[in-house]
Protein backbone atom coordinates (compact mmCIF):
# COMPACT_ATOMS: atom_id res chain seq x y z
CA UNK A 1 0.00 0.00 0.00
CA UNK A 2 2.84 2.38 0.83
CA UNK A 3 4.27 1.83 -2.64
CA UNK A 4 0.90 2.35 -4.31
CA UNK A 5 0.25 5.59 -2.45
CA UNK A 6 3.70 7.07 -2.83
CA UNK A 7 3.90 6.20 -6.52
CA UNK A 8 0.45 7.75 -7.02
CA UNK A 9 1.64 10.98 -5.37
CA UNK A 10 4.81 10.92 -7.44
CA UNK A 11 3.07 10.28 -10.75
CA UNK A 12 0.37 12.88 -10.16
CA UNK A 13 2.99 15.47 -9.16
CA UNK A 14 5.22 14.71 -12.13
CA UNK A 15 2.32 14.92 -14.58
CA UNK A 16 1.04 18.07 -12.83
CA UNK A 17 4.40 19.84 -12.96
CA UNK A 18 4.84 18.90 -16.63
CA UNK A 19 1.40 20.25 -17.52
CA UNK A 20 1.79 23.44 -15.48
CA UNK A 21 4.89 24.25 -17.52
CA UNK A 22 2.96 24.04 -20.82
CA UNK A 23 2.39 27.22 -22.80
CA UNK A 24 -1.41 27.10 -23.19
CA UNK A 25 -3.88 27.71 -20.40
CA UNK A 26 -5.91 24.50 -20.65
CA UNK A 27 -2.98 22.11 -19.91
CA UNK A 28 -1.93 24.49 -17.12
CA UNK A 29 -5.39 24.25 -15.55
CA UNK A 30 -5.28 20.43 -15.80
CA UNK A 31 -1.79 20.46 -14.31
CA UNK A 32 -2.97 22.53 -11.35
CA UNK A 33 -5.84 20.10 -10.81
CA UNK A 34 -3.44 17.12 -10.85
CA UNK A 35 -1.10 18.93 -8.44
CA UNK A 36 -3.96 19.50 -6.04
CA UNK A 37 -4.92 15.79 -6.24
CA UNK A 38 -1.34 14.85 -5.48
CA UNK A 39 -1.36 17.23 -2.51
CA UNK A 40 -4.59 15.76 -1.17
CA UNK A 41 -3.28 12.20 -1.32
CA UNK A 42 0.00 13.35 0.23
CA UNK A 43 -1.80 15.15 3.08
CA UNK A 44 -3.78 11.99 3.77
CA UNK A 45 -0.54 10.09 4.26
CA UNK A 46 0.86 12.60 6.79
CA UNK A 47 -1.32 10.99 9.47
CA UNK A 48 0.32 7.62 8.69
CA UNK A 49 -1.42 4.88 6.72
CA UNK A 50 -3.75 2.90 8.93
CA UNK A 51 -6.36 0.45 7.64
CA UNK A 52 -9.88 -0.05 9.01
CA UNK A 53 -9.52 2.12 12.12
CA UNK A 54 -12.04 4.74 13.26
CA UNK A 55 -10.99 8.41 13.35
CA UNK A 56 -13.23 9.25 16.34
CA UNK A 57 -13.33 7.79 19.82
CA UNK A 58 -15.40 4.65 20.15
CA UNK A 59 -15.43 2.09 22.97
CA UNK A 60 -14.72 -0.87 20.69
CA UNK A 61 -11.74 0.65 18.92
CA UNK A 62 -8.31 -0.85 19.56
CA UNK A 63 -6.48 1.84 17.64
CA UNK A 64 -7.29 5.00 15.76
CA UNK A 65 -6.41 6.71 12.54
CA UNK A 66 -5.37 10.36 12.75
CA UNK A 67 -8.51 12.45 12.11
CA UNK A 68 -6.71 15.75 11.59
CA UNK A 69 -5.29 15.10 8.07
CA UNK A 70 -8.79 14.09 6.99
CA UNK A 71 -10.08 17.48 8.08
CA UNK A 72 -7.16 19.17 6.34
CA UNK A 73 -7.79 17.25 3.13
CA UNK A 74 -11.45 18.17 3.22
CA UNK A 75 -10.56 21.86 3.50
CA UNK A 76 -7.94 21.52 0.78
CA UNK A 77 -10.41 19.76 -1.55
CA UNK A 78 -13.01 22.49 -1.14
CA UNK A 79 -10.47 25.25 -1.74
CA UNK A 80 -8.80 23.59 -4.72
CA UNK A 81 -12.17 22.77 -6.28
CA UNK A 82 -13.26 26.40 -6.04
CA UNK A 83 -9.89 27.58 -7.32
CA UNK A 84 -10.09 25.30 -10.35
CA UNK A 85 -13.45 26.87 -11.18
CA UNK A 86 -11.97 30.36 -10.81
CA UNK A 87 -8.97 29.66 -13.02
CA UNK A 88 -11.15 28.03 -15.71
CA UNK A 89 -13.37 31.12 -15.84
CA UNK A 90 -10.38 33.47 -15.87
CA UNK A 91 -8.58 31.50 -18.56
CA UNK A 92 -11.72 31.50 -20.68
CA UNK A 93 -12.26 35.22 -20.21
CA UNK A 94 -8.62 35.89 -21.01
CA UNK A 95 -8.93 33.81 -24.19
CA UNK A 96 -12.10 35.61 -25.26
CA UNK A 97 -10.67 39.07 -24.59
CA UNK A 98 -7.22 38.63 -26.12
CA UNK A 99 -7.95 35.96 -28.74
CA UNK A 100 -5.06 33.82 -27.53
CA UNK A 101 -4.93 31.03 -24.99
CA UNK A 102 -1.19 31.28 -24.49
CA UNK A 103 -0.27 31.88 -20.88
CA UNK A 104 1.87 34.87 -21.90
CA UNK A 105 -0.52 35.56 -24.81
CA UNK A 106 2.28 36.31 -27.24
CA UNK A 107 1.76 33.87 -30.10
CA UNK A 108 -0.91 35.80 -31.98
CA UNK A 109 -1.47 39.50 -32.40
CA UNK A 110 -4.44 40.80 -30.47
CA UNK A 111 -7.37 41.54 -32.83
CA UNK A 112 -7.66 45.27 -33.35
CA UNK A 113 -11.32 45.58 -32.38
CA UNK A 114 -10.57 44.06 -28.98
CA UNK A 115 -7.70 46.41 -28.42
CA UNK A 116 -9.82 49.47 -29.17
CA UNK A 117 -12.39 48.74 -26.50
CA UNK A 118 -9.89 48.65 -23.66
CA UNK A 119 -7.48 51.35 -24.69
CA UNK A 120 -6.09 53.41 -21.90
CA UNK A 121 -6.68 50.81 -19.21
CA UNK A 122 -3.72 48.55 -19.96
Amino acid at each position, binding site marked *: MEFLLSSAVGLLTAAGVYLVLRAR*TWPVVLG*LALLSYATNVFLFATGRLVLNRPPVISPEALAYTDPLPQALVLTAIVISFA*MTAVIVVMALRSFL*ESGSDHVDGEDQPVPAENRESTEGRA
Partner: protein
Amino acid sequence: MTHWIIAPVVLPAIMAPILLMGARHDMVLARIFSIASTVALLGIALALTTMVSDGTILTYALGNWVAPFGIVLVADRLSVMMLVLTAVLALAVLFFAIDGSDRDGRHFHALYQFQLMGINGAFLTGDFFNLFVFFEVLLIASYGLMVHGGGPARMKAGVQYVVINLVGSTLFLIAVGMIYSVAGTLNMADLAVKVPHIAAGDQALLQAGALLLLLVFCIKAALIPVHFWLPGTYANAPAAVAALFAIMTKVGAYCVIRLYILAFGADAGAATWLAAPWLLPAALLTLVLGMTGVLAARRLGQLAGFAVIGSMGLLLTSIALFTPIALSAALYYLLHSTLAGAVLFLIADLVARRRPGHEDGLSVAPGFTQLKLLAGAFFIAAIAATGMPPLSGFIGKLLMLDAALDSVHAAVIWTLILGTSLIAIIGFGRAGSTLFWKSTGEPGSFPEHAEKNSLSLIAIGLLLAGCVGLTLFAGPLTTYLDATAEQIFATDQYIEAVLGNTVLPGGSL
Protein backbone atom coordinates in the same frame (compact mmCIF):
# COMPACT_ATOMS: atom_id res chain seq x y z
CA MET B 1 -10.17 36.65 27.02
CA THR B 2 -11.39 39.67 25.12
CA HIS B 3 -13.60 39.22 22.10
CA TRP B 4 -12.11 42.26 20.36
CA ILE B 5 -9.33 40.09 18.95
CA ILE B 6 -11.62 38.35 16.49
CA ALA B 7 -13.40 41.58 15.47
CA PRO B 8 -10.90 42.47 12.69
CA VAL B 9 -11.79 39.15 11.01
CA VAL B 10 -15.52 39.04 11.78
CA LEU B 11 -16.36 42.63 10.87
CA PRO B 12 -15.26 42.50 7.20
CA ALA B 13 -16.59 38.93 6.97
CA ILE B 14 -20.07 40.24 7.85
CA MET B 15 -19.71 43.47 5.91
CA ALA B 16 -18.72 41.82 2.63
CA PRO B 17 -21.92 39.74 2.21
CA ILE B 18 -23.98 42.79 3.20
CA LEU B 19 -22.24 44.75 0.46
CA LEU B 20 -22.69 41.86 -1.94
CA MET B 21 -26.40 41.38 -1.34
CA GLY B 22 -27.73 44.61 0.12
CA ALA B 23 -25.73 47.29 -1.64
CA ARG B 24 -25.27 45.62 -5.00
CA HIS B 25 -27.13 48.23 -7.03
CA ASP B 26 -26.47 51.27 -4.90
CA MET B 27 -22.90 52.50 -5.27
CA VAL B 28 -23.34 55.33 -2.74
CA LEU B 29 -24.55 52.91 -0.08
CA ALA B 30 -21.73 50.49 -0.88
CA ARG B 31 -19.16 53.26 -0.53
CA ILE B 32 -20.60 54.40 2.80
CA PHE B 33 -20.63 50.85 4.20
CA SER B 34 -17.15 50.14 2.91
CA ILE B 35 -15.66 53.28 4.45
CA ALA B 36 -17.55 52.77 7.71
CA SER B 37 -16.23 49.22 7.96
CA THR B 38 -12.65 50.27 7.25
CA VAL B 39 -12.84 53.15 9.76
CA ALA B 40 -14.21 50.69 12.33
CA LEU B 41 -11.31 48.33 11.56
CA LEU B 42 -8.87 51.16 12.21
CA GLY B 43 -10.64 51.93 15.48
CA ILE B 44 -10.52 48.29 16.58
CA ALA B 45 -6.86 48.01 15.62
CA LEU B 46 -6.02 51.14 17.63
CA ALA B 47 -8.02 49.85 20.61
CA LEU B 48 -6.11 46.54 20.42
CA THR B 49 -2.87 48.55 20.30
CA THR B 50 -3.66 50.12 23.68
CA MET B 51 -4.39 46.64 25.06
CA VAL B 52 -1.10 45.07 23.94
CA SER B 53 1.19 48.11 24.28
CA ASP B 54 2.19 47.10 27.83
CA GLY B 55 3.58 43.82 26.51
CA THR B 56 0.66 41.49 27.19
CA ILE B 57 -0.07 38.87 24.54
CA LEU B 58 -3.80 38.40 24.07
CA THR B 59 -5.11 35.05 22.91
CA TYR B 60 -8.56 34.02 21.75
CA ALA B 61 -9.54 30.36 21.69
CA LEU B 62 -12.32 29.87 19.16
CA GLY B 63 -15.20 27.88 20.61
CA ASN B 64 -13.22 27.74 23.88
CA TRP B 65 -11.20 24.78 22.66
CA VAL B 66 -7.82 25.12 24.31
CA ALA B 67 -4.66 25.29 22.24
CA PRO B 68 -3.03 23.25 20.77
CA PHE B 69 -6.20 21.28 20.01
CA GLY B 70 -8.43 24.21 19.15
CA ILE B 71 -7.92 27.12 16.81
CA VAL B 72 -6.35 30.11 18.50
CA LEU B 73 -5.93 33.75 17.52
CA VAL B 74 -3.00 35.63 19.00
CA ALA B 75 -2.60 39.40 19.24
CA ASP B 76 0.80 40.64 20.27
CA ARG B 77 2.56 43.90 19.46
CA LEU B 78 3.64 42.71 16.00
CA SER B 79 0.22 41.42 14.92
CA VAL B 80 -1.57 44.52 16.11
CA MET B 81 0.95 46.82 14.48
CA MET B 82 0.29 45.04 11.18
CA LEU B 83 -3.46 45.43 11.73
CA VAL B 84 -3.09 49.18 12.22
CA LEU B 85 -0.91 49.45 9.12
CA THR B 86 -3.44 47.46 7.08
CA ALA B 87 -6.33 49.62 8.22
CA VAL B 88 -4.49 52.90 7.55
CA LEU B 89 -3.44 51.77 4.08
CA ALA B 90 -6.88 50.34 3.30
CA LEU B 91 -8.61 53.58 4.30
CA ALA B 92 -6.37 55.78 2.16
CA VAL B 93 -6.64 53.42 -0.81
CA LEU B 94 -10.41 53.29 -0.40
CA PHE B 95 -10.56 57.09 -0.78
CA PHE B 96 -8.70 56.66 -4.03
CA ALA B 97 -11.02 53.89 -5.22
CA ILE B 98 -14.28 55.72 -4.50
CA ASP B 99 -13.07 58.52 -6.71
CA GLY B 100 -14.40 56.50 -9.63
CA SER B 101 -12.32 53.39 -10.24
CA ASP B 102 -14.64 51.25 -8.10
CA ARG B 103 -17.24 51.66 -10.86
CA ASP B 104 -15.06 49.93 -13.48
CA GLY B 105 -16.28 46.49 -12.51
CA ARG B 106 -18.69 44.82 -10.15
CA HIS B 107 -18.44 44.04 -6.44
CA PHE B 108 -15.27 46.05 -5.79
CA HIS B 109 -16.21 46.89 -2.20
CA ALA B 110 -17.31 43.37 -1.27
CA LEU B 111 -14.04 41.91 -2.59
CA TYR B 112 -12.14 44.67 -0.81
CA GLN B 113 -13.67 43.68 2.54
CA PHE B 114 -12.94 39.98 1.93
CA GLN B 115 -9.37 40.95 1.13
CA LEU B 116 -9.09 42.82 4.43
CA MET B 117 -10.59 39.84 6.25
CA GLY B 118 -7.93 37.53 4.81
CA ILE B 119 -5.07 39.92 5.59
CA ASN B 120 -6.24 40.55 9.16
CA GLY B 121 -6.76 36.84 9.73
CA ALA B 122 -3.27 36.01 8.48
CA PHE B 123 -1.81 38.50 10.96
CA LEU B 124 -3.83 37.16 13.89
CA THR B 125 -3.87 33.39 13.49
CA GLY B 126 -1.83 31.24 15.84
CA ASP B 127 -1.64 28.07 13.77
CA PHE B 128 -0.26 27.56 10.33
CA PHE B 129 -3.12 25.65 8.80
CA ASN B 130 -5.37 28.62 9.42
CA LEU B 131 -2.59 30.73 8.01
CA PHE B 132 -3.10 28.71 4.83
CA VAL B 133 -6.86 29.25 4.98
CA PHE B 134 -6.50 33.01 5.47
CA PHE B 135 -3.91 33.12 2.69
CA GLU B 136 -6.51 31.52 0.45
CA VAL B 137 -9.16 34.02 1.56
CA LEU B 138 -6.95 36.96 0.78
CA LEU B 139 -5.77 35.41 -2.48
CA ILE B 140 -9.26 34.57 -3.71
CA ALA B 141 -10.35 38.14 -3.04
CA SER B 142 -7.19 39.42 -4.70
CA TYR B 143 -7.90 37.38 -7.86
CA GLY B 144 -11.21 39.21 -8.17
CA LEU B 145 -9.68 42.61 -7.41
CA MET B 146 -6.73 42.01 -9.72
CA VAL B 147 -8.96 41.66 -12.81
CA HIS B 148 -11.37 44.39 -11.66
CA GLY B 149 -12.28 46.37 -14.77
CA GLY B 150 -11.05 43.67 -17.17
CA GLY B 151 -9.16 44.17 -20.42
CA PRO B 152 -6.86 41.70 -22.26
CA ALA B 153 -3.58 42.76 -20.64
CA ARG B 154 -5.10 42.66 -17.18
CA MET B 155 -6.78 39.28 -17.73
CA LYS B 156 -3.52 37.83 -19.05
CA ALA B 157 -1.58 39.11 -16.03
CA GLY B 158 -4.45 37.91 -13.83
CA VAL B 159 -4.24 34.34 -15.12
CA GLN B 160 -0.48 34.29 -14.53
CA TYR B 161 -1.00 35.67 -11.03
CA VAL B 162 -3.60 33.00 -10.21
CA VAL B 163 -1.42 30.18 -11.58
CA ILE B 164 1.66 31.19 -9.61
CA ASN B 165 -0.39 31.53 -6.44
CA LEU B 166 -2.14 28.19 -6.91
CA VAL B 167 1.25 26.53 -7.28
CA GLY B 168 2.28 28.42 -4.13
CA SER B 169 -0.80 27.14 -2.28
CA THR B 170 0.03 23.58 -3.33
CA LEU B 171 3.55 23.95 -1.95
CA PHE B 172 2.11 25.46 1.22
CA LEU B 173 -0.08 22.40 1.80
CA ILE B 174 2.77 19.99 1.11
CA ALA B 175 4.98 21.90 3.54
CA VAL B 176 2.25 21.91 6.21
CA GLY B 177 1.81 18.17 5.69
CA MET B 178 5.54 17.49 6.03
CA ILE B 179 5.82 19.47 9.25
CA TYR B 180 2.66 17.93 10.67
CA SER B 181 3.85 14.41 9.85
CA VAL B 182 6.87 14.75 12.13
CA ALA B 183 5.76 17.34 14.70
CA GLY B 184 2.13 16.24 15.01
CA THR B 185 0.90 19.76 15.55
CA LEU B 186 -0.32 22.73 13.54
CA ASN B 187 -0.15 25.27 16.33
CA MET B 188 2.87 27.56 15.99
CA ALA B 189 3.53 27.82 19.72
CA ASP B 190 3.17 24.06 20.13
CA LEU B 191 5.47 23.54 17.15
CA ALA B 192 8.05 25.76 18.85
CA VAL B 193 7.88 23.46 21.89
CA LYS B 194 8.19 20.28 19.82
CA VAL B 195 10.83 21.25 17.24
CA PRO B 196 13.85 20.93 19.61
CA HIS B 197 12.80 17.35 20.46
CA ILE B 198 12.34 16.06 16.92
CA ALA B 199 14.39 12.91 16.43
CA ALA B 200 17.48 13.15 14.22
CA GLY B 201 15.93 10.75 11.69
CA ASP B 202 12.96 13.08 11.20
CA GLN B 203 15.03 16.25 10.91
CA ALA B 204 15.27 15.97 7.12
CA LEU B 205 11.49 15.93 6.75
CA LEU B 206 11.04 18.76 9.24
CA GLN B 207 13.68 21.01 7.72
CA ALA B 208 12.59 20.30 4.15
CA GLY B 209 9.03 21.17 5.16
CA ALA B 210 10.11 24.35 6.92
CA LEU B 211 12.23 25.47 3.98
CA LEU B 212 9.42 24.70 1.55
CA LEU B 213 7.21 26.90 3.70
CA LEU B 214 9.91 29.60 3.52
CA LEU B 215 9.75 29.34 -0.27
CA VAL B 216 5.99 29.90 -0.15
CA PHE B 217 6.40 32.99 2.03
CA CYS B 218 9.11 34.20 -0.35
CA ILE B 219 6.67 33.87 -3.28
CA LYS B 220 4.33 36.16 -1.35
CA ALA B 221 7.18 38.51 -0.46
CA ALA B 222 8.45 38.47 -4.08
CA LEU B 223 11.98 37.37 -3.24
CA ILE B 224 14.44 36.06 -5.83
CA PRO B 225 14.05 33.54 -7.49
CA VAL B 226 10.25 33.69 -7.13
CA HIS B 227 9.78 37.43 -7.65
CA PHE B 228 8.91 37.36 -11.36
CA TRP B 229 5.14 37.55 -10.92
CA LEU B 230 5.17 40.91 -9.17
CA PRO B 231 6.04 43.57 -11.79
CA GLY B 232 3.52 42.25 -14.32
CA THR B 233 0.80 41.81 -11.72
CA TYR B 234 1.21 45.19 -10.06
CA ALA B 235 1.67 47.11 -13.29
CA ASN B 236 -1.51 45.60 -14.77
CA ALA B 237 -3.71 45.64 -11.67
CA PRO B 238 -6.00 48.64 -11.09
CA ALA B 239 -4.02 51.30 -9.20
CA ALA B 240 -6.08 51.08 -6.01
CA VAL B 241 -5.63 47.30 -5.97
CA ALA B 242 -1.89 47.51 -6.65
CA ALA B 243 -1.59 49.97 -3.76
CA LEU B 244 -3.48 47.61 -1.44
CA PHE B 245 -1.27 44.74 -2.64
CA ALA B 246 1.65 46.64 -1.10
CA ILE B 247 0.54 45.09 2.21
CA MET B 248 0.33 41.59 0.68
CA THR B 249 4.07 41.30 0.16
CA LYS B 250 4.39 42.27 3.83
CA VAL B 251 2.18 39.33 4.79
CA GLY B 252 5.00 37.11 3.49
CA ALA B 253 7.56 39.10 5.50
CA TYR B 254 5.34 38.90 8.60
CA CYS B 255 5.12 35.09 8.33
CA VAL B 256 8.89 34.81 8.03
CA ILE B 257 9.33 36.96 11.16
CA ARG B 258 6.71 35.02 13.09
CA LEU B 259 7.51 31.41 12.28
CA TYR B 260 11.27 31.41 11.76
CA ILE B 261 11.99 33.23 15.02
CA LEU B 262 9.40 31.39 17.10
CA ALA B 263 9.72 27.79 15.90
CA PHE B 264 13.03 27.69 14.03
CA GLY B 265 14.90 30.29 16.08
CA ALA B 266 17.46 30.18 18.88
CA ASP B 267 16.07 27.13 20.72
CA ALA B 268 15.24 24.92 17.77
CA GLY B 269 17.90 22.27 18.37
CA ALA B 270 19.22 20.94 15.07
CA ALA B 271 17.01 23.37 13.14
CA THR B 272 18.40 26.52 14.82
CA TRP B 273 18.11 29.63 12.59
CA LEU B 274 17.04 27.45 9.72
CA ALA B 275 16.03 30.32 7.45
CA ALA B 276 19.05 32.61 7.88
CA PRO B 277 21.55 31.09 5.40
CA TRP B 278 18.92 30.99 2.63
CA LEU B 279 17.19 34.25 3.29
CA LEU B 280 20.16 36.64 3.38
CA PRO B 281 21.63 35.97 -0.09
CA ALA B 282 18.17 35.86 -1.67
CA ALA B 283 17.22 39.15 -0.01
CA LEU B 284 20.44 40.87 -1.10
CA LEU B 285 20.00 39.68 -4.69
CA THR B 286 16.39 40.87 -4.63
CA LEU B 287 17.54 44.27 -3.43
CA VAL B 288 19.97 44.58 -6.35
CA LEU B 289 17.46 43.30 -8.90
CA GLY B 290 14.65 45.51 -7.64
CA MET B 291 16.64 48.72 -7.67
CA THR B 292 18.19 47.88 -11.05
CA GLY B 293 14.66 47.32 -12.29
CA VAL B 294 13.78 50.83 -11.10
CA LEU B 295 16.49 52.14 -13.40
CA ALA B 296 15.39 49.95 -16.32
CA ALA B 297 11.62 50.47 -16.04
CA ARG B 298 9.84 52.01 -19.01
CA ARG B 299 6.58 52.79 -17.26
CA LEU B 300 5.91 54.48 -13.95
CA GLY B 301 3.75 51.56 -12.80
CA GLN B 302 6.59 49.14 -13.57
CA LEU B 303 9.02 51.39 -11.73
CA ALA B 304 6.77 51.30 -8.67
CA GLY B 305 6.61 47.49 -8.91
CA PHE B 306 10.39 47.18 -8.98
CA ALA B 307 10.66 49.70 -6.13
CA VAL B 308 8.42 47.37 -4.10
CA ILE B 309 10.65 44.37 -4.98
CA GLY B 310 13.74 46.34 -3.97
CA SER B 311 12.19 47.42 -0.69
CA MET B 312 11.21 43.81 0.05
CA GLY B 313 14.84 42.81 -0.55
CA LEU B 314 16.01 45.48 1.86
CA LEU B 315 13.37 44.53 4.43
CA LEU B 316 14.22 40.82 4.35
CA THR B 317 17.96 41.55 4.43
CA SER B 318 17.42 43.16 7.80
CA ILE B 319 15.06 40.38 8.95
CA ALA B 320 17.57 37.72 7.82
CA LEU B 321 20.12 39.03 10.33
CA PHE B 322 17.77 37.71 13.04
CA THR B 323 18.80 40.10 15.80
CA PRO B 324 16.35 42.23 17.83
CA ILE B 325 17.97 45.50 16.76
CA ALA B 326 17.92 44.58 13.06
CA LEU B 327 14.33 43.38 13.37
CA SER B 328 13.30 46.67 14.96
CA ALA B 329 14.88 48.53 12.02
CA ALA B 330 13.14 46.16 9.60
CA LEU B 331 9.75 46.82 11.20
CA TYR B 332 10.25 50.56 10.88
CA TYR B 333 11.16 50.11 7.22
CA LEU B 334 8.17 47.82 6.76
CA LEU B 335 5.78 50.56 7.92
CA HIS B 336 7.51 53.09 5.70
CA SER B 337 7.86 50.99 2.55
CA THR B 338 4.20 49.93 2.59
CA LEU B 339 3.02 53.55 2.53
CA ALA B 340 5.72 54.75 0.11
CA GLY B 341 5.16 51.82 -2.28
CA ALA B 342 1.39 52.28 -2.30
CA VAL B 343 1.53 56.01 -3.03
CA LEU B 344 3.73 55.44 -6.09
CA PHE B 345 1.03 53.28 -7.73
CA LEU B 346 -1.63 55.91 -7.06
CA ILE B 347 0.50 58.71 -8.55
CA ALA B 348 1.32 56.54 -11.59
CA ASP B 349 -2.39 55.99 -12.21
CA LEU B 350 -3.28 59.70 -11.99
CA VAL B 351 -0.46 60.52 -14.41
CA ALA B 352 -1.59 57.74 -16.79
CA ARG B 353 -5.17 59.02 -16.86
CA ARG B 354 -3.99 62.50 -17.86
CA ARG B 355 -1.81 61.37 -20.76
CA PRO B 356 -3.98 59.44 -23.21
CA GLY B 357 -1.75 57.70 -25.75
CA HIS B 358 1.32 57.93 -23.54
CA GLU B 359 -0.22 56.72 -20.26
CA ASP B 360 2.41 56.24 -17.58
CA GLY B 361 5.19 55.46 -20.08
CA LEU B 362 8.41 57.28 -19.29
CA SER B 363 8.26 59.32 -22.47
CA VAL B 364 8.48 63.06 -23.12
CA ALA B 365 5.02 64.40 -23.88
CA PRO B 366 3.22 67.73 -23.60
CA GLY B 367 2.25 69.00 -20.18
CA PHE B 368 -0.96 67.76 -18.62
CA THR B 369 -3.59 68.85 -16.11
CA GLN B 370 -2.40 69.30 -12.51
CA LEU B 371 1.18 68.64 -13.58
CA LYS B 372 2.77 70.69 -10.79
CA LEU B 373 0.68 69.09 -8.08
CA LEU B 374 1.48 65.54 -9.24
CA ALA B 375 5.13 66.44 -9.76
CA GLY B 376 5.30 67.63 -6.16
CA ALA B 377 3.64 64.47 -4.88
CA PHE B 378 5.99 62.29 -6.95
CA PHE B 379 8.99 64.26 -5.66
CA ILE B 380 8.03 63.62 -2.04
CA ALA B 381 7.19 59.97 -2.74
CA ALA B 382 10.51 59.49 -4.57
CA ILE B 383 12.44 60.99 -1.65
CA ALA B 384 10.66 58.58 0.68
CA ALA B 385 11.05 55.54 -1.59
CA THR B 386 14.74 56.01 -2.35
CA GLY B 387 15.62 56.71 1.27
CA MET B 388 16.88 60.26 0.95
CA PRO B 389 16.83 62.60 3.93
CA PRO B 390 14.68 63.96 5.49
CA LEU B 391 11.85 61.44 5.11
CA SER B 392 11.22 58.07 6.77
CA GLY B 393 13.04 55.97 4.15
CA PHE B 394 16.29 57.62 5.18
CA ILE B 395 15.72 56.86 8.86
CA GLY B 396 14.77 53.28 8.02
CA LYS B 397 17.91 52.71 5.97
CA LEU B 398 20.05 54.39 8.64
CA LEU B 399 18.63 52.07 11.31
CA MET B 400 19.26 49.05 9.08
CA LEU B 401 22.83 50.04 8.28
CA ASP B 402 23.45 50.57 11.99
CA ALA B 403 21.96 47.18 12.83
CA ALA B 404 24.04 45.45 10.13
CA LEU B 405 27.31 46.68 11.69
CA ASP B 406 27.49 43.70 14.05
CA SER B 407 26.95 41.15 11.27
CA VAL B 408 29.85 39.21 9.76
CA HIS B 409 28.49 40.22 6.35
CA ALA B 410 28.46 43.93 7.26
CA ALA B 411 30.75 44.95 4.37
CA VAL B 412 28.58 43.27 1.71
CA ILE B 413 25.33 44.56 3.20
CA TRP B 414 26.60 48.15 3.50
CA THR B 415 27.98 48.15 -0.05
CA LEU B 416 24.79 46.77 -1.55
CA ILE B 417 22.39 49.00 0.41
CA LEU B 418 24.35 52.17 -0.39
CA GLY B 419 25.03 51.15 -4.00
CA THR B 420 21.41 50.26 -4.72
CA SER B 421 20.26 53.49 -3.08
CA LEU B 422 22.31 55.40 -5.62
CA ILE B 423 20.87 53.35 -8.49
CA ALA B 424 17.35 53.95 -7.18
CA ILE B 425 17.97 57.71 -6.89
CA ILE B 426 19.16 57.80 -10.51
CA GLY B 427 16.16 55.71 -11.63
CA PHE B 428 13.62 57.88 -9.82
CA GLY B 429 15.39 61.07 -10.90
CA ARG B 430 15.34 60.00 -14.54
CA ALA B 431 11.66 59.03 -14.37
CA GLY B 432 10.64 62.25 -12.64
CA SER B 433 12.59 64.56 -14.90
CA THR B 434 11.27 62.83 -18.04
CA LEU B 435 7.67 62.87 -16.91
CA PHE B 436 7.44 66.24 -15.25
CA TRP B 437 10.30 68.56 -16.20
CA LYS B 438 10.93 67.76 -19.85
CA SER B 439 7.19 67.54 -20.47
CA THR B 440 6.54 71.19 -19.65
CA GLY B 441 8.53 72.51 -22.63
CA GLU B 442 6.94 70.15 -25.16
CA PRO B 443 4.62 71.73 -27.76
CA GLY B 444 1.03 70.56 -28.08
CA SER B 445 -1.28 69.55 -25.29
CA PHE B 446 -3.40 66.72 -24.00
CA PRO B 447 -7.16 67.22 -23.81
CA GLU B 448 -8.07 68.96 -20.54
CA HIS B 449 -8.71 66.33 -17.89
CA ALA B 450 -12.19 67.12 -16.63
CA GLU B 451 -11.99 65.38 -13.27
CA LYS B 452 -10.20 67.12 -10.46
CA ASN B 453 -9.69 63.79 -8.67
CA SER B 454 -9.71 65.59 -5.32
CA LEU B 455 -10.45 62.39 -3.38
CA SER B 456 -7.53 60.64 -5.10
CA LEU B 457 -5.28 63.53 -4.21
CA ILE B 458 -6.49 63.35 -0.61
CA ALA B 459 -5.57 59.63 -0.61
CA ILE B 460 -2.10 60.43 -1.92
CA GLY B 461 -1.80 63.23 0.63
CA LEU B 462 -2.81 60.87 3.46
CA LEU B 463 -0.18 58.29 2.50
CA LEU B 464 2.53 60.95 2.14
CA ALA B 465 1.44 62.43 5.49
CA GLY B 466 1.91 58.94 6.89
CA CYS B 467 5.53 58.97 5.71
CA VAL B 468 6.02 62.42 7.23
CA GLY B 469 4.38 61.22 10.44
CA LEU B 470 6.73 58.23 10.59
CA THR B 471 9.62 60.70 10.31
CA LEU B 472 8.34 63.16 12.92
CA PHE B 473 7.50 60.46 15.47
CA ALA B 474 10.51 58.28 14.66
CA GLY B 475 11.74 58.56 18.28
CA PRO B 476 8.72 57.17 20.16
CA LEU B 477 8.05 54.78 17.29
CA THR B 478 11.50 53.17 17.39
CA THR B 479 11.18 52.79 21.18
CA TYR B 480 7.92 50.95 20.60
CA LEU B 481 9.39 48.85 17.79
CA ASP B 482 12.41 47.93 19.95
CA ALA B 483 9.96 46.58 22.51
CA THR B 484 8.09 44.77 19.72
CA ALA B 485 11.27 43.15 18.44
CA GLU B 486 12.26 42.09 21.95
CA GLN B 487 8.84 40.56 22.46
CA ILE B 488 9.18 38.59 19.21
CA PHE B 489 12.54 37.23 20.31
CA ALA B 490 11.24 36.36 23.81
CA THR B 491 9.53 33.28 22.40
CA ASP B 492 8.78 31.90 25.90
CA GLN B 493 6.24 34.67 26.42
CA TYR B 494 4.40 33.77 23.23
CA ILE B 495 4.39 30.05 24.03
CA GLU B 496 3.30 30.72 27.60
CA ALA B 497 0.47 32.99 26.43
CA VAL B 498 -0.84 30.52 23.87
CA LEU B 499 -0.41 27.23 25.66
CA GLY B 500 -0.69 28.58 29.22
CA ASN B 501 -0.62 25.72 31.67
CA THR B 502 -1.50 23.15 29.07
CA VAL B 503 2.08 22.81 27.80
CA LEU B 504 2.45 19.17 26.93
CA PRO B 505 5.70 17.42 27.69
CA GLY B 506 7.82 17.69 24.57
CA GLY B 507 9.16 14.60 22.92
CA SER B 508 9.20 12.79 19.66
CA LEU B 509 6.02 11.12 18.58
